[in-house]
């Protein structure tokens, strides 16, 4: 249960700004602006994580999302020609809007309808070391699988972006 006044204020302020910037991602017309708003959203989500006393995940979020993925997005945007840097919608805009709204309504209904087993636990004191232990005892197999996944992703990305001429040259 989060009862600390400052944290309560922080949650609502950060949550509101996160939602607003997420909406701006959908609303702005310039793709670069959308990426920048997305960075603000990611940082805001990291703030929410901190409110939820998950400091390690929050820092990983800033490092990976705001630091790395947004940079990748920027790279990808800069690789596209200037004319394609609009943030326009397809003809699915209205159905998507309806679907998203419906989903939101259903989820909110479910959230309020469920009886959660809420603990009266205080904040986590430290998460980094216990997370590390968790990764190496109960979750060691998923951890290794994740590393394999990352290697596969890296190799796949390299192969996908490799010049075909160069590839042919290597094969020959």
């Amino acid at each position, binding site marked *: 249960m989060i009862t600390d006044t400052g944290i309560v204020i922080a949650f609502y302020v950060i949550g509101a700004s996160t939602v607003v910037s997420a909406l701006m991602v*959908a609303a702005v017309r310039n793709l670069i602006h959308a990426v920048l708003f997305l960075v603000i*959203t990611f940082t805001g989500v990291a703030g929410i994580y901190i409110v939820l006393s998950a400091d390690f995940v929050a820092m990983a979020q800033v490092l990976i999302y705001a630091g790395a993925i947004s940079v990748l997005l920027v790279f990808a945007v800069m690789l596209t020609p200037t004319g394609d840097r609009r943030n326009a919608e397809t003809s699915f805009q209205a159905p998507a809007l309806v*679907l998203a709204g419906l989903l939101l309504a259903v989820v909110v209904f479910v959230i309020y309808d469920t009886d959660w087993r809420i603990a009266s636990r205080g904040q986590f004191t430290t998460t980094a070391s216990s997370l590390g232990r968790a990764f190496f005892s109960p979750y060691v197999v998923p951890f290794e699988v994740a590393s394999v996944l990352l290697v596969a992703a890296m190799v796949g990305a390299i192969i996908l972006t490799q010049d075909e001429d160069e590839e042919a040259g290597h094969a020959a």
Partner: protein
Amino acid sequence: MLPEVLLATVPLEHVLILGAILFAIGLYLALSKRNAIGVLMGIELMLNAVNVTLLAFSRYVVSPRPLDGQVFAIFVITVAAGEAAVALALAVAIYRHRETVNIDEIDVLRW
């Protein structure tokens, strides 16, 4: 002491609703954006929303292993990083072959 308003708590439902809103926005982005990179941004946003939910459960809900939610969130972040790299590589590869990242025009697999 403090006024009553400031003594309020953050109920679990509010955190989950925040996650739901972010998820809905991400879904909208992923479904409606014309640019492949816009779609990818929506997917990343959805993953973030899921993480918010996971961490909220980890924080609020009684469990023998309270940190499981965080562990799972970290796996989600890991997968998201890999996914972003591959997806952006795909976008670049598609652009290289089709000279567009407009997903309306990437339709060779339509029929």
